[in-house]
């Protein structure tokens, strides 16, 4: 059942969404560009947290799915021009989900380390294969020529975000969400309670896989020209992990409060100190592990708890 509190929240979110959706009309091209980046990361990071938050499995393969999605759009436009554009997004999502299924079936019944290692190299693996195929077929890269501008791309990402949030919310309030919380708490207990933890993890991993692929498909027209180095850039995977952990994976809204500050800081650093972004990424990782292991969500929840108990005492 949907409570009245939830209806109120939905109304608030609806109004906020409508406000955010007007960004392209503000006439600020710089902010629209940032908006596209933030919206794309918000979708990928939130879906990453839906899987990694409860399972504690760290996936480092966002770039692999993203690249597959970009190539879906590029190849689709090149070879099947009669297909409507939106079908390419659906195909990309399907491919991403199937890929995640295969990866999950190989690694997710084993301990987390295997999964981390496998996903760490997945983007590089697919990049090598795509490069090899391109050399073999004599093709260098692909042009993605559409009439889609930043504005359309931005709206598509907003739509993707809404979809991710709805999926996350539905999972949370379903039996699956309860099972996930048990797994996150203690996998042994979960198994004894009759939860199919391996199967659940595989299914759940399909969500970030599909979302990252769709994100790649949406963003492809912006690149105009696609080649493996660009589509499978490993940096993307690490950025997604950092933002998710910075925000905190315990709550659905954690992704967003990690993405916004990180993107803003990142853009500023990338402009003023372009050679130090790797160092920044490393330092960000260390700061999160040592000082804010539960992310901003953890800090905020702590603060709220303290305020509430303080209020009761006073």
């Amino acid at each position, binding site marked *: 059942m949907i409570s009245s509190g939830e209806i109120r929240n939905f109304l608030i979110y609806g109004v906020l969404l409508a406000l955010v959706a007007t960004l392209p009309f503000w006439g600020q091209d710089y902010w629209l560009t940032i908006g596209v980046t933030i919206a794309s990361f918000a979708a990928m990071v939130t879906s990453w947290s839906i899987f990694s938050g409860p399972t*504690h499995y*760290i996936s480092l393969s966002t770039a692999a799915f993203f690249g597959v999605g970009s190539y879906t759009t590029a190849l689709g436009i090149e070879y099947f021009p009669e297909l409507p554009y939106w079908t390419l997004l659906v195909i990309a999502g399907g491919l991403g989900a199937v890929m995640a299924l295969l990866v999950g079936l*190989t*690694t997710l019944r*084993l*301990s*987390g*380390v*295997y999964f*981390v*290692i*496998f996903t*760490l*190299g997945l983007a*590089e*693996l697919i990049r*090598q*294969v795509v*490069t*090899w195929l391109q*050399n073999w077929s004599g093709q260098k890269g692909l042009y993605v020529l559409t009439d889609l501008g930043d504005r359309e791309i931005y709206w598509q990402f907003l739509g993707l975000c809404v979809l991710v949030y709805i999926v996350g919310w539905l999972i949370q309030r379903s039996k699956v969400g309860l099972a996930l919380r048990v797994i996150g708490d203690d996998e042994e207990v979960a198994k004894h309670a009759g939860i199919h933890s391996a199967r659940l993890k595989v299914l759940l991993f399909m969500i970030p896989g599909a979302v990252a692929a769709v994100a790649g498909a949406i963003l492809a027209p912006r690149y105009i020209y696609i080649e493996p180095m660009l589509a499978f850039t*490993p940096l993307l995977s*690490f950025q997604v992990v950092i933002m998710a*952990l910075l925000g905190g994976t315990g709550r659905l809204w954690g992704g967003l409060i990690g993405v916004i500050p990180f993107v803003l800081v990142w853009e500023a650093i990338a402009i003023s100190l372009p*050679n*130090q972004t*790797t*160092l*920044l*990424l*490393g*330092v*960000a*990782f*260390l700061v*999160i*592990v*040592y000082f804010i*292991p539960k992310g901003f969500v953890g800090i905020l929840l702590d603060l709220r708890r303290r305020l509430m108990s303080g209020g009761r005492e006073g």
Partner: protein
Amino acid sequence: MEVIITGLVLGGTYALVALGLNIQYGISRIMNLANGELLVAGGLAAFWFWTAGQISPMLTLVIVAPGAFVLNYLIYVIMLRPLVRRAKSQGELEVSSILATFGLAFVGVGIMLALVGGQYFSYSYLSRPIEILGSNYGLNRIIAFLAAAVMCALVYLWLHKSRMGMSIRALAVAPDSAVLVGVNVERLSALAFAIGGAITAVGGALISTFLTLDPSSGVLFTLKALVIVIMGGVGDTRGTIVAALLLGILETFVATVFDPGLTLAAAYLLFVLVLLFRPQGFFGKPTS
């Protein structure tokens, strides 16, 4: 035949690097994702000594090994021990140590980028041909292989014949019971981490004599070393060496027959097969 010898030679140096990682993971329980950066740093040191003073990479090892030992010891004591103490379970330690060493890896790349920029560094050391069984091989590769083989043998003897090696193996097999028989877990973990790091850095210095490295090539080596460790079995010296030689041969085969750009794909193929059929490693016993 040529593929097999080149592969064995390459695998020999991989074995040394993976051995370093395996000691760090099997004994200190830290999955060190900054392993490849350490390797590149070792190579960078060898490169510097060679270009600055024509000091042979073999002599450089005498400096690289203790340097890496101290660096890794400090990293363990300052950065990783707090994580070990904080962790409530092995799983939690795994997640936080993966993230922390990942951060270290990026910091390492960032520092090296700041030092040398994005360019590749390579030097020519003993790059004259030597004939074995009718084919020519680079002398530097052969020397590196021999050095790696000697080091592997030393590590093996140390682990299996010395008293400290025995404590270390006890720690790897049963960390909880090791305490009962008087093994100082905290001290030994730090030492093992430092020794593993030193081994990897030495491997890096050797690899740099015949491969071109750049600051960001570390992650590829990390991946290969990880695949080798998993294939060979965590904490298993013998398995690591076999797996490394196998990977070396397969990589050389793929590079000569298909494309040099597909080496990681080859490593992954092996990895997937191992994950599907023998996730406990070549010589490991199945766990429940």
